[in-house]
Protein backbone atom coordinates (compact mmCIF):
# COMPACT_ATOMS: atom_id res chain seq x y z
CA UNK A 1 0.00 0.00 0.00
CA UNK A 2 1.49 3.35 -1.01
CA UNK A 3 1.54 6.22 1.45
CA UNK A 4 -0.67 8.26 -0.80
CA UNK A 5 -3.26 5.56 -0.76
CA UNK A 6 -3.10 5.21 3.02
CA UNK A 7 -3.64 8.95 3.38
CA UNK A 8 -6.58 8.93 0.96
CA UNK A 9 -8.22 6.00 2.74
CA UNK A 10 -7.59 7.63 6.14
CA UNK A 11 -9.16 10.94 5.14
CA UNK A 12 -12.18 9.29 3.52
CA UNK A 13 -12.67 7.07 6.56
CA UNK A 14 -12.40 9.96 9.04
CA UNK A 15 -14.80 12.20 7.14
CA UNK A 16 -17.39 9.50 6.53
CA UNK A 17 -17.41 8.08 10.05
CA UNK A 18 -17.76 11.53 11.64
CA UNK A 19 -20.58 12.23 9.18
CA UNK A 20 -22.31 8.99 10.18
CA UNK A 21 -22.02 9.87 13.88
CA UNK A 22 -23.55 13.35 13.60
CA UNK A 23 -25.98 12.47 10.78
CA UNK A 24 -29.06 11.88 13.02
CA UNK A 25 -28.92 15.53 14.10
CA UNK A 26 -28.97 16.73 10.49
CA UNK A 27 -31.88 14.71 9.12
CA UNK A 28 -35.58 14.21 9.64
CA UNK A 29 -36.77 10.78 10.84
CA UNK A 30 -37.17 9.53 7.27
CA UNK A 31 -33.57 10.46 6.49
CA UNK A 32 -32.43 8.53 9.56
CA UNK A 33 -34.50 5.57 8.43
CA UNK A 34 -32.77 5.63 5.04
CA UNK A 35 -29.34 5.83 6.69
CA UNK A 36 -30.27 2.86 8.89
CA UNK A 37 -31.33 0.97 5.76
CA UNK A 38 -27.96 1.82 4.29
CA UNK A 39 -26.19 0.29 7.30
CA UNK A 40 -28.31 -2.88 7.09
CA UNK A 41 -27.80 -3.29 3.34
CA UNK A 42 -24.08 -2.70 3.78
CA UNK A 43 -23.93 -5.66 6.17
CA UNK A 44 -25.64 -7.84 3.54
CA UNK A 45 -23.34 -6.49 0.83
CA UNK A 46 -20.23 -7.15 2.95
CA UNK A 47 -21.38 -10.77 3.13
CA UNK A 48 -21.83 -10.93 -0.62
CA UNK A 49 -18.46 -9.28 -1.16
CA UNK A 50 -16.93 -12.20 0.70
CA UNK A 51 -18.56 -14.61 -1.75
CA UNK A 52 -18.03 -12.57 -4.90
CA UNK A 53 -15.01 -10.40 -4.24
CA UNK A 54 -12.90 -12.80 -2.25
CA UNK A 55 -14.00 -16.25 -3.36
CA UNK A 56 -14.97 -15.25 -6.92
CA UNK A 57 -18.41 -16.89 -6.93
CA UNK A 58 -21.63 -15.26 -8.12
CA UNK A 59 -24.43 -15.69 -5.60
CA UNK A 60 -27.92 -14.57 -6.55
CA UNK A 61 -29.51 -15.64 -3.27
CA UNK A 62 -28.39 -12.93 -0.86
CA UNK A 63 -31.92 -11.48 -0.76
CA UNK A 64 -33.24 -14.92 0.21
CA UNK A 65 -30.83 -15.05 3.15
CA UNK A 66 -31.78 -11.53 4.23
CA UNK A 67 -35.40 -12.68 3.95
CA UNK A 68 -34.86 -15.84 5.98
CA UNK A 69 -33.11 -13.83 8.69
CA UNK A 70 -35.88 -11.23 8.67
CA UNK A 71 -38.69 -13.81 8.85
CA UNK A 72 -37.00 -15.77 11.65
CA UNK A 73 -36.64 -12.54 13.61
CA UNK A 74 -40.14 -11.27 12.88
CA UNK A 75 -41.77 -14.62 13.67
CA UNK A 76 -39.92 -15.24 16.92
CA UNK A 77 -39.90 -11.69 18.35
CA UNK A 78 -43.64 -11.33 17.77
CA UNK A 79 -43.99 -14.63 19.67
CA UNK A 80 -42.21 -13.15 22.65
CA UNK A 81 -38.60 -14.26 22.17
CA UNK A 82 -35.85 -11.86 23.05
CA UNK A 83 -33.88 -10.31 20.16
CA UNK A 84 -30.31 -11.31 20.94
CA UNK A 85 -30.50 -15.10 20.71
CA UNK A 86 -32.65 -14.67 17.57
CA UNK A 87 -30.06 -12.48 15.88
CA UNK A 88 -27.46 -15.20 16.45
CA UNK A 89 -29.93 -17.85 15.33
CA UNK A 90 -30.67 -15.95 12.08
CA UNK A 91 -26.96 -15.76 11.27
CA UNK A 92 -26.30 -19.41 12.11
CA UNK A 93 -29.39 -20.67 10.26
CA UNK A 94 -28.38 -18.82 7.08
CA UNK A 95 -24.81 -20.07 7.44
CA UNK A 96 -26.08 -23.66 7.64
CA UNK A 97 -28.52 -23.23 4.74
CA UNK A 98 -25.79 -21.59 2.68
CA UNK A 99 -23.47 -24.48 3.43
CA UNK A 100 -26.13 -27.01 2.40
CA UNK A 101 -26.85 -25.10 -0.80
CA UNK A 102 -23.26 -24.46 -1.76
CA UNK A 103 -21.95 -27.93 -0.93
CA UNK A 104 -23.43 -29.71 -3.95
CA UNK A 105 -23.33 -26.69 -6.29
CA UNK A 106 -19.64 -26.06 -5.75
CA UNK A 107 -18.69 -29.57 -6.75
CA UNK A 108 -19.04 -28.16 -10.24
CA UNK A 109 -17.04 -25.06 -10.90
CA UNK A 110 -18.17 -22.75 -13.68
CA UNK A 111 -21.22 -20.70 -12.97
CA UNK A 112 -23.47 -23.27 -11.45
CA UNK A 113 -23.60 -21.58 -8.08
CA UNK A 114 -25.17 -18.60 -9.85
CA UNK A 115 -27.89 -20.80 -11.36
CA UNK A 116 -28.58 -22.78 -8.18
CA UNK A 117 -28.79 -19.61 -6.07
CA UNK A 118 -31.04 -17.98 -8.67
CA UNK A 119 -33.45 -20.89 -8.40
CA UNK A 120 -33.15 -20.94 -4.60
CA UNK A 121 -34.02 -17.24 -4.28
CA UNK A 122 -37.15 -17.66 -6.37
CA UNK A 123 -38.18 -20.76 -4.39
CA UNK A 124 -37.72 -19.03 -1.04
CA UNK A 125 -39.74 -16.06 -2.27
CA UNK A 126 -42.60 -18.38 -3.28
CA UNK A 127 -42.55 -20.02 0.16
CA UNK A 128 -42.69 -16.60 1.87
CA UNK A 129 -45.65 -15.65 -0.29
CA UNK A 130 -47.65 -18.86 -0.15
CA UNK A 131 -47.15 -20.40 3.31
CA UNK A 132 -49.58 -18.17 5.13
CA UNK A 133 -49.62 -20.17 8.37
CA UNK A 134 -45.92 -19.42 8.84
CA UNK A 135 -45.14 -16.14 7.10
CA UNK A 136 -48.54 -14.45 6.88
CA UNK A 137 -48.40 -14.68 3.08
CA UNK A 138 -48.83 -11.40 1.25
CA UNK A 139 -50.17 -9.78 4.44
CA UNK A 140 -46.82 -10.35 6.09
CA UNK A 141 -45.96 -9.98 9.77
CA UNK A 142 -46.55 -6.59 11.35
CA UNK A 143 -45.60 -4.94 14.67
CA UNK A 144 -42.13 -6.44 14.86
CA UNK A 145 -40.74 -5.06 18.15
CA UNK A 146 -37.36 -3.32 18.38
CA UNK A 147 -34.85 -4.78 20.81
CA UNK A 148 -33.58 -3.24 24.01
CA UNK A 149 -30.03 -3.35 25.34
CA UNK A 150 -29.50 -3.63 29.11
CA UNK A 151 -32.87 -2.01 29.81
CA UNK A 152 -32.21 0.77 27.28
CA UNK A 153 -34.99 0.67 24.69
CA UNK A 154 -34.12 1.21 21.04
CA UNK A 155 -37.59 2.17 19.93
CA UNK A 156 -36.60 5.62 18.75
CA UNK A 157 -35.21 6.22 15.27
CA UNK A 158 -31.96 7.69 16.67
CA UNK A 159 -31.28 4.84 19.05
CA UNK A 160 -31.98 2.18 16.46
CA UNK A 161 -29.82 3.97 13.92
CA UNK A 162 -26.85 3.93 16.28
CA UNK A 163 -27.57 0.28 16.99
CA UNK A 164 -27.45 -0.56 13.26
CA UNK A 165 -24.26 1.45 12.96
CA UNK A 166 -22.72 -0.44 15.89
CA UNK A 167 -23.58 -3.80 14.34
CA UNK A 168 -22.13 -2.63 11.03
CA UNK A 169 -18.91 -1.59 12.78
CA UNK A 170 -18.77 -4.93 14.57
CA UNK A 171 -19.30 -6.91 11.37
CA UNK A 172 -16.80 -4.76 9.48
CA UNK A 173 -14.11 -5.29 12.14
CA UNK A 174 -14.73 -9.03 12.16
CA UNK A 175 -14.35 -9.18 8.38
CA UNK A 176 -11.29 -6.89 8.50
CA UNK A 177 -9.72 -9.38 10.88
CA UNK A 178 -10.89 -12.35 8.80
CA UNK A 179 -9.37 -11.22 5.51
CA UNK A 180 -6.04 -10.67 7.21
CA UNK A 181 -6.11 -14.11 8.79
CA UNK A 182 -4.78 -17.17 6.94
CA UNK A 183 -8.38 -17.82 5.86
CA UNK A 184 -8.64 -14.48 4.14
CA UNK A 185 -5.31 -15.04 2.42
CA UNK A 186 -6.63 -18.35 1.17
CA UNK A 187 -9.80 -16.64 -0.12
CA UNK A 188 -7.72 -14.16 -2.13
CA UNK A 189 -5.42 -16.91 -3.37
CA UNK A 190 -8.28 -18.93 -4.77
CA UNK A 191 -9.83 -15.89 -6.43
CA UNK A 192 -6.60 -14.82 -8.09
CA UNK A 193 -5.66 -18.27 -9.34
CA UNK A 194 -7.68 -21.25 -8.14
CA UNK A 195 -5.50 -23.85 -9.80
CA UNK A 196 -2.33 -22.42 -8.32
CA UNK A 197 -3.97 -22.15 -4.91
CA UNK A 198 -4.97 -25.77 -5.13
CA UNK A 199 -1.50 -26.88 -6.09
CA UNK A 200 -0.16 -25.00 -3.07
CA UNK A 201 -2.35 -27.12 -0.84
CA UNK A 202 -5.35 -24.82 -0.36
CA UNK A 203 -8.52 -26.88 -0.23
CA UNK A 204 -10.25 -24.60 -2.74
CA UNK A 205 -13.65 -26.20 -2.50
CA UNK A 206 -13.79 -25.94 1.26
CA UNK A 207 -12.67 -22.32 1.32
CA UNK A 208 -15.08 -21.31 -1.45
CA UNK A 209 -17.87 -22.99 0.43
CA UNK A 210 -16.81 -21.29 3.66
CA UNK A 211 -16.78 -17.87 1.99
CA UNK A 212 -20.24 -18.49 0.53
CA UNK A 213 -21.70 -19.75 3.82
CA UNK A 214 -20.20 -16.86 5.80
CA UNK A 215 -21.65 -14.47 3.25
CA UNK A 216 -25.03 -16.12 3.67
CA UNK A 217 -24.72 -15.85 7.47
CA UNK A 218 -24.09 -12.11 7.21
CA UNK A 219 -27.16 -11.91 4.98
CA UNK A 220 -29.12 -13.50 7.84
CA UNK A 221 -27.79 -10.97 10.34
CA UNK A 222 -28.73 -8.13 7.98
CA UNK A 223 -32.22 -9.64 7.86
CA UNK A 224 -32.38 -9.79 11.66
CA UNK A 225 -31.71 -6.02 11.67
CA UNK A 226 -34.05 -5.31 8.78
CA UNK A 227 -37.15 -6.78 10.45
CA UNK A 228 -37.10 -4.52 13.54
CA UNK A 229 -36.02 -1.57 11.38
CA UNK A 230 -39.07 -1.59 9.11
CA UNK A 231 -41.25 -3.34 11.76
CA UNK A 232 -43.32 -4.93 8.99
CA UNK A 233 -42.21 -7.84 6.84
CA UNK A 234 -43.78 -8.99 3.59
CA UNK A 235 -42.35 -11.10 0.75
CA UNK A 236 -41.85 -8.36 -1.86
CA UNK A 237 -38.49 -6.94 -0.73
CA UNK A 238 -36.84 -10.38 -0.82
CA UNK A 239 -37.50 -11.23 -4.46
CA UNK A 240 -34.69 -11.75 -6.94
CA UNK A 241 -34.52 -7.99 -7.56
CA UNK A 242 -32.82 -7.34 -4.22
CA UNK A 243 -30.27 -10.08 -4.90
CA UNK A 244 -29.37 -8.46 -8.20
CA UNK A 245 -29.30 -5.07 -6.52
CA UNK A 246 -26.92 -6.30 -3.81
CA UNK A 247 -24.72 -7.87 -6.45
CA UNK A 248 -24.55 -4.58 -8.34
CA UNK A 249 -23.78 -2.73 -5.08
CA UNK A 250 -20.74 -4.92 -4.48
CA UNK A 251 -19.55 -4.64 -8.06
CA UNK A 252 -20.10 -0.91 -8.47
CA UNK A 253 -18.35 -0.13 -5.20
CA UNK A 254 -15.52 -2.45 -6.05
CA UNK A 255 -15.71 -6.19 -5.47
CA UNK A 256 -12.77 -7.52 -3.50
CA UNK A 257 -12.19 -4.12 -1.89
CA UNK A 258 -12.95 -3.92 1.80
CA UNK A 259 -14.81 -0.62 1.44
CA UNK A 260 -16.50 -1.57 -1.84
CA UNK A 261 -19.85 -2.58 -0.27
CA UNK A 262 -19.99 0.64 1.80
CA UNK A 263 -19.63 2.78 -1.31
CA UNK A 264 -21.88 0.56 -3.42
CA UNK A 265 -24.66 0.74 -0.83
CA UNK A 266 -24.39 4.54 -0.77
CA UNK A 267 -24.99 4.59 -4.51
CA UNK A 268 -27.78 2.03 -4.46
CA UNK A 269 -29.59 3.02 -1.24
CA UNK A 270 -28.87 6.68 -0.43
CA UNK A 271 -28.54 8.31 -3.85
CA UNK A 272 -31.94 7.16 -5.19
CA UNK A 273 -33.61 8.84 -2.20
CA UNK A 274 -31.79 12.12 -2.72
CA UNK A 275 -32.40 11.98 -6.47
CA UNK A 276 -36.08 11.10 -6.13
CA UNK A 277 -37.09 13.78 -8.64
CA UNK A 278 -35.20 11.87 -11.33
CA UNK A 279 -37.37 8.73 -10.81
CA UNK A 280 -36.87 6.14 -13.56
CA UNK A 281 -34.04 8.14 -15.09
CA UNK A 282 -31.98 7.46 -11.98
CA UNK A 283 -32.24 3.70 -12.50
CA UNK A 284 -31.37 4.09 -16.16
CA UNK A 285 -28.34 6.17 -15.26
CA UNK A 286 -27.37 3.58 -12.66
CA UNK A 287 -27.64 0.78 -15.23
CA UNK A 288 -25.51 2.75 -17.68
CA UNK A 289 -22.95 3.36 -14.92
CA UNK A 290 -22.79 -0.39 -14.24
CA UNK A 291 -22.27 -1.18 -17.92
CA UNK A 292 -19.62 1.53 -18.39
CA UNK A 293 -17.78 0.40 -15.27
CA UNK A 294 -17.74 -3.19 -16.48
CA UNK A 295 -16.41 -2.10 -19.88
CA UNK A 296 -13.72 0.28 -18.64
CA UNK A 297 -13.00 -0.72 -15.07
CA UNK A 298 -14.42 -4.05 -13.87
CA UNK A 299 -12.93 -3.50 -10.42
CA UNK A 300 -15.56 -0.85 -9.70
CA UNK A 301 -15.33 2.72 -8.42
CA UNK A 302 -12.70 1.90 -5.80
CA UNK A 303 -10.68 0.12 -8.46
CA UNK A 304 -10.94 3.26 -10.55
CA UNK A 305 -9.83 5.45 -7.62
CA UNK A 306 -7.00 3.03 -6.94
CA UNK A 307 -5.88 3.22 -10.54
CA UNK A 308 -5.95 7.04 -10.53
CA UNK A 309 -4.03 7.26 -7.25
CA UNK A 310 -1.32 4.85 -8.35
CA UNK A 311 -0.95 6.36 -11.80
CA UNK A 312 -0.48 9.88 -10.40
CA UNK A 313 1.99 8.77 -7.77
CA UNK A 314 4.87 8.15 -10.16
CA UNK A 315 7.64 7.97 -7.62
CA UNK A 316 5.84 5.42 -5.50
CA UNK A 317 6.41 1.74 -6.19
CA UNK A 318 3.57 -0.22 -7.73
CA UNK A 319 0.93 -0.79 -5.13
CA UNK A 320 -0.07 -4.30 -4.25
CA UNK A 321 -3.55 -4.31 -5.72
CA UNK A 322 -6.75 -5.40 -4.08
CA UNK A 323 -5.55 -6.32 -0.65
CA UNK A 324 -7.66 -3.97 1.39
Amino acid at each position, binding site marked *: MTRRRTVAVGIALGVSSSFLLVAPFLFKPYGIFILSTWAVMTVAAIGLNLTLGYA*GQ*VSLAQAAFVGIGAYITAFLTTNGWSFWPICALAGVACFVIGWGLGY*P*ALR*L*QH*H*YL*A*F*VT*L*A*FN*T*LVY*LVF*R*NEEWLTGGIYGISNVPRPSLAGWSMNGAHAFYYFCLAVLALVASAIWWLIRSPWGRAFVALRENP*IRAQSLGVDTRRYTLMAFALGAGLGGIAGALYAPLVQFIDPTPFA*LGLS*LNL*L*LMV*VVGGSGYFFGPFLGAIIAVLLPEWLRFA*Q*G*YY*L*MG*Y*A*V*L*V*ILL*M*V*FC*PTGLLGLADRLLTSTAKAAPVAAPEVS
Partner: protein
Amino acid sequence: MLTDILQLFVAGLATGGIYALAAIGFTLLWQTSQTINFAQGEFVMLPAFFVLIGMGFFGLPFWAAALIGVAVSIVTLGLMFKKLMVDPMLNHGVLPLVIATIGLAILMKEAVREFYGADAWPFPPLVAATNVTVFGAALAVQSLAVLGISVAAVTILQLFLNKTRTGRCMQATAQNPTVARLLGVPVERMILYTFLINAALVALASLLITPIYLAKFTNGELLGLYAFIAAIIGGFNQVRGAIVGGLVLGVIDNFTAVYISTQYRLVIPLLFLIVVILFRPQGLLGRVEERTV
Protein backbone atom coordinates in the same frame (compact mmCIF):
# COMPACT_ATOMS: atom_id res chain seq x y z
CA MET B 1 -59.89 -36.47 -19.14
CA LEU B 2 -57.78 -37.66 -22.02
CA THR B 3 -58.87 -34.69 -24.13
CA ASP B 4 -57.88 -32.35 -21.28
CA ILE B 5 -54.45 -33.89 -21.26
CA LEU B 6 -54.13 -33.54 -25.02
CA GLN B 7 -55.16 -29.88 -24.84
CA LEU B 8 -52.70 -29.16 -22.07
CA PHE B 9 -49.96 -31.04 -23.88
CA VAL B 10 -50.38 -29.01 -27.08
CA ALA B 11 -50.58 -25.73 -25.16
CA GLY B 12 -47.47 -26.77 -23.24
CA LEU B 13 -45.59 -27.60 -26.41
CA ALA B 14 -46.55 -24.20 -27.85
CA THR B 15 -45.21 -22.18 -24.89
CA GLY B 16 -42.30 -24.61 -24.74
CA GLY B 17 -41.48 -23.83 -28.36
CA ILE B 18 -41.19 -20.15 -27.46
CA TYR B 19 -38.98 -20.92 -24.44
CA ALA B 20 -36.86 -23.05 -26.77
CA LEU B 21 -36.34 -20.13 -29.19
CA ALA B 22 -35.04 -17.96 -26.35
CA ALA B 23 -32.99 -20.81 -24.89
CA ILE B 24 -31.31 -21.66 -28.21
CA GLY B 25 -30.03 -18.11 -28.57
CA PHE B 26 -28.82 -18.25 -25.00
CA THR B 27 -26.77 -21.41 -25.60
CA LEU B 28 -25.45 -20.13 -28.95
CA LEU B 29 -23.99 -17.04 -27.27
CA TRP B 30 -22.47 -19.16 -24.54
CA GLN B 31 -20.93 -21.61 -26.99
CA THR B 32 -19.26 -19.11 -29.25
CA SER B 33 -18.33 -16.30 -26.91
CA GLN B 34 -18.84 -17.42 -23.29
CA THR B 35 -21.53 -14.80 -22.90
CA ILE B 36 -24.10 -15.57 -20.21
CA ASN B 37 -26.81 -13.15 -21.17
CA PHE B 38 -28.84 -12.21 -18.11
CA ALA B 39 -30.84 -9.82 -20.29
CA GLN B 40 -32.18 -12.60 -22.53
CA GLY B 41 -35.69 -12.21 -21.11
CA GLU B 42 -35.64 -8.48 -21.79
CA PHE B 43 -34.35 -9.29 -25.28
CA VAL B 44 -37.66 -11.13 -25.80
CA MET B 45 -39.67 -8.34 -24.19
CA LEU B 46 -38.27 -5.47 -26.29
CA PRO B 47 -38.98 -6.36 -29.97
CA ALA B 48 -42.75 -6.31 -29.31
CA PHE B 49 -42.37 -2.66 -28.34
CA PHE B 50 -40.47 -1.93 -31.56
CA VAL B 51 -43.48 -3.33 -33.41
CA LEU B 52 -45.92 -1.31 -31.28
CA ILE B 53 -43.93 1.86 -31.92
CA GLY B 54 -43.94 1.11 -35.66
CA MET B 55 -47.73 0.71 -35.61
CA GLY B 56 -48.56 3.49 -33.15
CA PHE B 57 -46.17 6.30 -34.05
CA PHE B 58 -45.59 5.61 -37.72
CA GLY B 59 -49.00 4.15 -38.53
CA LEU B 60 -47.59 1.11 -40.29
CA PRO B 61 -49.69 -2.02 -40.89
CA PHE B 62 -48.86 -4.93 -38.58
CA TRP B 63 -46.83 -6.98 -41.07
CA ALA B 64 -44.61 -4.02 -42.03
CA ALA B 65 -44.12 -3.04 -38.39
CA ALA B 66 -43.26 -6.65 -37.55
CA LEU B 67 -40.65 -6.85 -40.32
CA ILE B 68 -39.10 -3.55 -39.31
CA GLY B 69 -39.25 -4.58 -35.65
CA VAL B 70 -37.30 -7.75 -36.39
CA ALA B 71 -34.77 -5.77 -38.43
CA VAL B 72 -34.32 -3.18 -35.68
CA SER B 73 -33.92 -6.00 -33.14
CA ILE B 74 -31.20 -7.64 -35.23
CA VAL B 75 -29.30 -4.35 -35.42
CA THR B 76 -29.68 -3.32 -31.76
CA LEU B 77 -29.84 -6.65 -29.89
CA GLY B 78 -27.44 -8.38 -32.26
CA LEU B 79 -24.93 -6.05 -33.87
CA MET B 80 -24.85 -3.24 -31.31
CA PHE B 81 -24.98 -5.59 -28.30
CA LYS B 82 -21.92 -7.39 -29.64
CA LYS B 83 -19.92 -4.40 -30.81
CA LEU B 84 -20.65 -2.00 -27.95
CA MET B 85 -20.89 -4.34 -24.97
CA VAL B 86 -19.46 -7.79 -25.51
CA ASP B 87 -16.38 -6.99 -27.60
CA PRO B 88 -14.86 -4.41 -25.25
CA MET B 89 -15.22 -6.89 -22.37
CA LEU B 90 -13.79 -10.00 -23.98
CA ASN B 91 -10.56 -9.76 -22.01
CA HIS B 92 -12.20 -9.20 -18.64
CA GLY B 93 -13.46 -12.79 -18.31
CA VAL B 94 -17.00 -14.05 -17.81
CA LEU B 95 -18.00 -12.26 -14.61
CA PRO B 96 -17.98 -8.56 -15.67
CA LEU B 97 -20.04 -9.43 -18.71
CA VAL B 98 -22.60 -11.21 -16.51
CA ILE B 99 -22.88 -8.09 -14.34
CA ALA B 100 -23.06 -5.83 -17.40
CA THR B 101 -25.96 -7.84 -18.86
CA ILE B 102 -27.78 -7.53 -15.52
CA GLY B 103 -27.29 -3.77 -15.88
CA LEU B 104 -28.51 -3.93 -19.47
CA ALA B 105 -31.67 -5.77 -18.35
CA ILE B 106 -32.44 -2.98 -15.85
CA LEU B 107 -31.74 -0.34 -18.50
CA MET B 108 -34.09 -1.94 -21.05
CA LYS B 109 -36.86 -2.44 -18.52
CA GLU B 110 -36.68 1.09 -17.13
CA ALA B 111 -36.41 2.63 -20.58
CA VAL B 112 -39.60 0.89 -21.73
CA ARG B 113 -41.41 1.90 -18.54
CA GLU B 114 -40.24 5.49 -18.80
CA PHE B 115 -40.78 6.05 -22.51
CA TYR B 116 -43.68 3.73 -23.32
CA GLY B 117 -45.52 3.24 -20.06
CA ALA B 118 -46.07 0.65 -17.37
CA ASP B 119 -49.36 -0.71 -18.74
CA ALA B 120 -49.91 -4.05 -20.45
CA TRP B 121 -50.55 -3.27 -24.10
CA PRO B 122 -52.57 -5.54 -26.39
CA PHE B 123 -50.60 -7.00 -29.26
CA PRO B 124 -52.05 -8.28 -32.54
CA PRO B 125 -51.98 -12.09 -32.82
CA LEU B 126 -50.51 -13.77 -35.87
CA VAL B 127 -53.62 -15.92 -36.39
CA ALA B 128 -57.24 -15.65 -35.29
CA ALA B 129 -58.14 -16.91 -31.82
CA THR B 130 -60.32 -19.88 -32.80
CA ASN B 131 -60.26 -23.56 -31.90
CA VAL B 132 -60.11 -26.70 -34.00
CA THR B 133 -61.35 -30.05 -32.70
CA VAL B 134 -58.92 -32.95 -32.91
CA PHE B 135 -59.92 -36.30 -31.32
CA GLY B 136 -62.56 -34.43 -29.34
CA ALA B 137 -60.06 -31.98 -27.89
CA ALA B 138 -60.49 -28.29 -28.63
CA LEU B 139 -57.05 -27.04 -29.63
CA ALA B 140 -56.35 -23.34 -30.01
CA VAL B 141 -55.29 -22.50 -33.54
CA GLN B 142 -52.93 -19.98 -32.00
CA SER B 143 -51.10 -22.70 -30.05
CA LEU B 144 -50.78 -24.83 -33.15
CA ALA B 145 -49.51 -21.89 -35.19
CA VAL B 146 -46.99 -20.94 -32.50
CA LEU B 147 -45.80 -24.53 -32.30
CA GLY B 148 -45.58 -24.81 -36.08
CA ILE B 149 -43.61 -21.58 -36.45
CA SER B 150 -41.16 -22.47 -33.70
CA VAL B 151 -40.60 -25.95 -35.09
CA ALA B 152 -40.04 -24.47 -38.54
CA ALA B 153 -37.59 -21.90 -37.19
CA VAL B 154 -35.65 -24.51 -35.26
CA THR B 155 -35.55 -26.87 -38.27
CA ILE B 156 -34.25 -24.12 -40.54
CA LEU B 157 -31.61 -23.24 -37.95
CA GLN B 158 -30.53 -26.88 -37.59
CA LEU B 159 -30.31 -27.29 -41.38
CA PHE B 160 -28.31 -24.09 -41.59
CA LEU B 161 -25.90 -25.19 -38.85
CA ASN B 162 -25.40 -28.71 -40.21
CA LYS B 163 -25.72 -28.46 -43.97
CA THR B 164 -24.24 -25.13 -45.01
CA ARG B 165 -20.59 -24.20 -45.05
CA THR B 166 -21.16 -21.13 -42.86
CA GLY B 167 -23.15 -23.18 -40.35
CA ARG B 168 -20.40 -25.76 -40.06
CA CYS B 169 -17.83 -23.01 -39.62
CA MET B 170 -19.97 -21.68 -36.78
CA GLN B 171 -20.00 -25.09 -35.12
CA ALA B 172 -16.24 -25.34 -35.51
CA THR B 173 -15.92 -21.92 -33.86
CA ALA B 174 -18.07 -23.07 -30.98
CA GLN B 175 -16.13 -26.29 -30.46
CA ASN B 176 -12.61 -25.00 -30.73
CA PRO B 177 -11.98 -21.42 -31.81
CA THR B 178 -8.20 -21.78 -31.89
CA VAL B 179 -8.17 -24.74 -34.27
CA ALA B 180 -11.00 -23.20 -36.31
CA ARG B 181 -8.91 -20.06 -36.75
CA LEU B 182 -5.89 -22.12 -37.81
CA LEU B 183 -8.03 -23.85 -40.40
CA GLY B 184 -8.99 -20.51 -41.89
CA VAL B 185 -12.43 -20.03 -40.37
CA PRO B 186 -13.17 -16.31 -39.95
CA VAL B 187 -13.90 -16.80 -36.25
CA GLU B 188 -14.84 -13.17 -35.56
CA ARG B 189 -17.45 -13.13 -38.26
CA MET B 190 -18.89 -16.47 -37.11
CA ILE B 191 -19.30 -15.11 -33.58
CA LEU B 192 -21.06 -12.07 -34.99
CA TYR B 193 -23.45 -14.38 -36.89
CA THR B 194 -24.43 -16.13 -33.64
CA PHE B 195 -25.33 -12.75 -32.13
CA LEU B 196 -27.44 -11.89 -35.17
CA ILE B 197 -29.16 -15.28 -35.06
CA ASN B 198 -29.85 -14.82 -31.35
CA ALA B 199 -31.42 -11.43 -32.05
CA ALA B 200 -33.60 -12.90 -34.80
CA LEU B 201 -34.72 -15.77 -32.54
CA VAL B 202 -35.67 -13.51 -29.62
CA ALA B 203 -37.54 -11.19 -32.02
CA LEU B 204 -39.49 -14.17 -33.33
CA ALA B 205 -40.17 -15.38 -29.78
CA SER B 206 -41.39 -11.88 -28.96
CA LEU B 207 -43.85 -11.85 -31.87
CA LEU B 208 -45.17 -15.26 -30.82
CA ILE B 209 -45.52 -14.79 -27.07
CA THR B 210 -46.63 -11.17 -26.75
CA PRO B 211 -50.17 -11.75 -28.11
CA ILE B 212 -50.60 -14.27 -25.26
CA TYR B 213 -49.00 -12.30 -22.39
CA LEU B 214 -49.63 -8.72 -23.65
CA ALA B 215 -46.73 -6.29 -24.03
CA LYS B 216 -45.45 -5.22 -20.61
CA PHE B 217 -42.06 -3.99 -19.48
CA THR B 218 -41.77 -6.73 -16.85
CA ASN B 219 -42.37 -9.59 -19.30
CA GLY B 220 -38.68 -10.37 -19.47
CA GLU B 221 -38.28 -11.37 -15.83
CA LEU B 222 -40.18 -14.63 -16.11
CA LEU B 223 -39.25 -15.32 -19.73
CA GLY B 224 -35.56 -14.90 -18.95
CA LEU B 225 -35.86 -17.34 -16.06
CA TYR B 226 -37.59 -19.91 -18.28
CA ALA B 227 -35.04 -19.51 -21.09
CA PHE B 228 -32.36 -19.98 -18.51
CA ILE B 229 -33.91 -23.12 -17.01
CA ALA B 230 -34.61 -24.56 -20.47
CA ALA B 231 -31.03 -24.01 -21.57
CA ILE B 232 -29.57 -25.62 -18.47
CA ILE B 233 -31.82 -28.64 -18.18
CA GLY B 234 -31.35 -29.40 -21.86
CA GLY B 235 -27.60 -28.97 -21.81
CA PHE B 236 -25.87 -25.66 -21.73
CA ASN B 237 -23.61 -26.49 -24.64
CA GLN B 238 -26.12 -28.03 -27.04
CA VAL B 239 -28.60 -26.46 -29.42
CA ARG B 240 -30.57 -29.72 -29.44
CA GLY B 241 -30.60 -29.64 -25.65
CA ALA B 242 -32.15 -26.19 -25.56
CA ILE B 243 -34.97 -27.36 -27.84
CA VAL B 244 -35.73 -30.39 -25.69
CA GLY B 245 -35.33 -28.31 -22.52
CA GLY B 246 -37.77 -25.70 -23.78
CA LEU B 247 -40.44 -28.19 -24.82
CA VAL B 248 -40.14 -30.27 -21.63
CA LEU B 249 -40.33 -27.11 -19.55
CA GLY B 250 -43.40 -25.81 -21.38
CA VAL B 251 -45.27 -29.09 -20.86
CA ILE B 252 -44.24 -29.44 -17.18
CA ASP B 253 -45.21 -25.83 -16.57
CA ASN B 254 -48.71 -26.23 -18.01
CA PHE B 255 -49.41 -29.50 -16.21
CA THR B 256 -48.15 -28.11 -12.89
CA ALA B 257 -50.41 -25.08 -13.17
CA VAL B 258 -53.49 -27.25 -13.72
CA TYR B 259 -52.88 -30.39 -11.68
CA ILE B 260 -50.64 -29.29 -8.80
CA SER B 261 -50.90 -25.63 -7.86
CA THR B 262 -50.94 -22.32 -9.66
CA GLN B 263 -49.26 -20.65 -6.70
CA TYR B 264 -46.37 -23.07 -6.88
CA ARG B 265 -46.32 -23.17 -10.67
CA LEU B 266 -42.67 -22.13 -10.81
CA VAL B 267 -41.54 -24.56 -8.15
CA ILE B 268 -41.48 -27.74 -10.23
CA PRO B 269 -39.34 -26.21 -13.01
CA LEU B 270 -36.99 -24.72 -10.41
CA LEU B 271 -36.65 -28.01 -8.52
CA PHE B 272 -36.13 -29.77 -11.83
CA LEU B 273 -33.35 -27.27 -12.57
CA ILE B 274 -31.66 -27.93 -9.23
CA VAL B 275 -31.94 -31.70 -9.63
CA VAL B 276 -30.43 -31.53 -13.12
CA ILE B 277 -27.58 -29.33 -11.94
CA LEU B 278 -26.82 -31.66 -9.05
CA PHE B 279 -27.06 -34.99 -10.81
CA ARG B 280 -26.52 -34.27 -14.47
CA PRO B 281 -24.75 -30.91 -14.70
CA GLN B 282 -24.06 -31.32 -18.40
CA GLY B 283 -27.83 -31.32 -19.00
CA LEU B 284 -30.16 -33.98 -20.32
CA LEU B 285 -28.56 -34.06 -23.77
CA GLY B 286 -25.28 -32.31 -23.07
CA ARG B 287 -21.78 -33.65 -23.18
CA VAL B 288 -19.24 -33.07 -20.47
CA GLU B 289 -17.17 -30.00 -21.15
CA GLU B 290 -13.50 -30.47 -20.67
CA ARG B 291 -11.82 -27.70 -18.83
CA THR B 292 -8.43 -26.45 -19.76
CA VAL B 293 -5.97 -25.15 -17.25
